[in-house]
């Protein structure tokens, strides 16, 4: 290892520096606004650094990391999400009594964890990334520690995530015992000898449990609704987007390196998980009266859809998955952005009756929420439709008919609850108006503008996906 190899790691180093800088800023007692702006600038710096190192890609940093196009793509999406979430966090925490400053340290650390997952090619870095992510999330989820739900959610996540980490470690140990390597490519080399050994398969199985937990796939989904509901809304957005993108990225790399999809058993396991996630997620969401819980169950279903793109294990599947994650993140960010914007100091805007007739009271915000729900439902003109379209086409190409049939059936079920929310938005009996916030005009306006831009992006990607698609292909070629 030499200094040249560090250059592709520059974005990640800056990302790590962001939390250290935040610590020092807090030590010097600078205000929330300063921390927010600095964090924003640091994240922009990460983006520039990624741009700066683009010519050196792909570059392996043995033994732990590999920075290639795929990693850059997912890291880019992660950074984009954290930029938006950071912005939402300002108005959200500024209104609450808790000290918001340490929040940013944890936020950046968790982001770093997710980013490390995207570049890891070794069990050690996988574990470090996953733990950085989880441990920061324990604290982030329970950050508003005076709320009952938050503590409950934090405890649930802590216990279950710790358990899943134990599973992960155990699986790694088993695989290491059989294959004699912790590097993905090293395992791939030994694969012909060990692929039928029961211990190796058991190791894979326990790793699937841990990954399934992070992605909230059925049957490891039990935490999702409570944690989504109990967390502060920006943190919910974080769990729904960044945490899952990172985990999915490392799953994708692992599967690509050891050609996971060539084993009928593994395909069968993932098919069952995908099918049950789609069914359970959509059915449980049907009767939810709480928007955050509804989105939690819908995200379970959405990662079931995503697994359908993952099943074929071909180029089209990877492309579809990347597109899906991009569309999905933008959609969810705008939905959670609206929830953040409408939440007041006393109440999270999470029960559906708050949204009754919102379109007549606050047309812009309600339209954005409606667009993001349409996108989640996969209606044309929005990015969600094309995302689902690519997933379907990846599935059709490899003729995985059963999951596809389930995907279609469950999307129709899913439509029902998205339409229910949309119907609520257009309802007549409006409750008392939500308090207008004028406390932080600049951040309020910029959040507003961000939301409009996000909704615009949903439309733009939904109608002209060419540019995004080209970008994804370009990135995926760098490997």
């Amino acid at each position: 290892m030499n200094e040249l190899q560090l250059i592709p790691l520059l974005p990640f180093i800056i990302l790590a520096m962001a939390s250290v800088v935040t610590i020092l800023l807090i030590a010097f007692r600078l205000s929330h606004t300063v921390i927010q702006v600095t964090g924003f600038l640091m994240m922009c710096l990460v983006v520039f650094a990624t741009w700066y190192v683009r010519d050196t890609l792909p570059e392996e940093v043995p033994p732990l990391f590999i920075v290639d196009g795929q990693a850059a793509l997912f890291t880019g999406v992660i950074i984009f999400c954290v930029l938006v979430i950071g912005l939402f966090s300002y108005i959200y925490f500024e209104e609450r009594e808790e000290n918001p400053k340490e929040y940013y340290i944890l936020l950046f650390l968790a982001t770093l964890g997710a980013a490390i997952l995207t570049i890891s090619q070794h069990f050690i870095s996988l574990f470090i990334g996953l733990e950085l992510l989880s441990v920061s999330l324990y604290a982030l989820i329970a950050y508003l520690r005076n709320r009952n739900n938050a503590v409950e959610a934090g405890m649930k996540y802590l216990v279950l995530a710790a358990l899943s980490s134990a599973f992960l470690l155990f699986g790694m140990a088993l695989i290491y015992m059989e294959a004699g390597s912790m590097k993905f490519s090293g395992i791939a080399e030994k694969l012909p000898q060990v692929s039928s050994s029961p211990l190796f398969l058991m190791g894979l199985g326990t790793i699937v449990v841990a990954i399934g937990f992070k992605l909230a796939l059925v049957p490891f989904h039990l935490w999702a609704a409570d944690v989504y509901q109990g967390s502060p809304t920006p943190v919910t957005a974080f769990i729904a987007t960044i945490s899952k993108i990172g985990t999915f990225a490392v799953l994708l790399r692992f599967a690509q390196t050891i050609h996971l999809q060539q084993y009928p058993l593994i395909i069968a396991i993932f098919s069952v998980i995908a099918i049950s996630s789609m069914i359970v997620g959509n059915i449980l969401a049907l009767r939810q009266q709480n928007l955050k819980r509804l989105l939690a169950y819908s995200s379970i279903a959405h990662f079931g859809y995503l697994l359908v793109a993952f099943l074929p294990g071909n180029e089209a599947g990877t492309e579809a998955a990347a597109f899906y994650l991009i569309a999905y993140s933008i959609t969810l960010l705008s939905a959670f952005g609206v929830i953040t914007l409408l939440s007041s100091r006393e109440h999270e805007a999470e029960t559906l009756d708050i949204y009754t007739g919102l379109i007549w009271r606050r047309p812009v915000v309600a339209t954005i929420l409606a667009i993001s729900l349409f996108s989640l439902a996969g209606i044309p003109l929005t990015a969600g439709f094309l995302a689902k379209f690519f997933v379907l086409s990846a599935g059709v190409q490899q003729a995985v008919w059963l999951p596809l049939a389930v995907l279609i059936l469950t999307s129709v079920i899913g439509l029902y609850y998205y339409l229910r929310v949309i119907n609520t938005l257009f309802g007549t009996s409006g409750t008392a108006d939500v308090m207008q916030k004028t406390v932080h005009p600049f951040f309020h306006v910029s959040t507003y503008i961000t939301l409009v831009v996000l909704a615009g992006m949903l439309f733009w990607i939904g109608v002209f996906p060419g540019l995004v698609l080209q970008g994804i292909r370009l990135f995926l070629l760098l490997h």
Partner: protein
Amino acid sequence: MFTDTVLLSATTPFSYFPIVLQLCAALGFVGLTMFATHFLGPKRKTSDKLVTFESGIEQKGNARQPVAIKYFLTAILFVLFDVEVIFFYPYAVNFRELGWDGFLAMLLFVAFFLGGFFYILKKGALKWED
């Protein structure tokens, strides 16, 4: 005799002889000092002195007593820094092989370390009196 290569190689039971010697010395020192203090020091027995030492906390009674958070804070910070010091050990062992690169890495590590310490100090986590 002890420089003999046969004795230094780890394959014979005899190579554990130095450890036995050290064990004897250690046990002997403990025994000797306990024995010696028994005779040398003056003795004044009070009830306070005879109870088990528990760092100043009541050793009997209800365990669910409120304890000032300061204790825990200090304890956890102590553990944190203590554990981080462990990272010096592999560096010290490989001091020569790692060279200047290792030194720089360690310097960076210490800098982060100090940053954290500075944060703690500024937050007033180590301030004992309110």
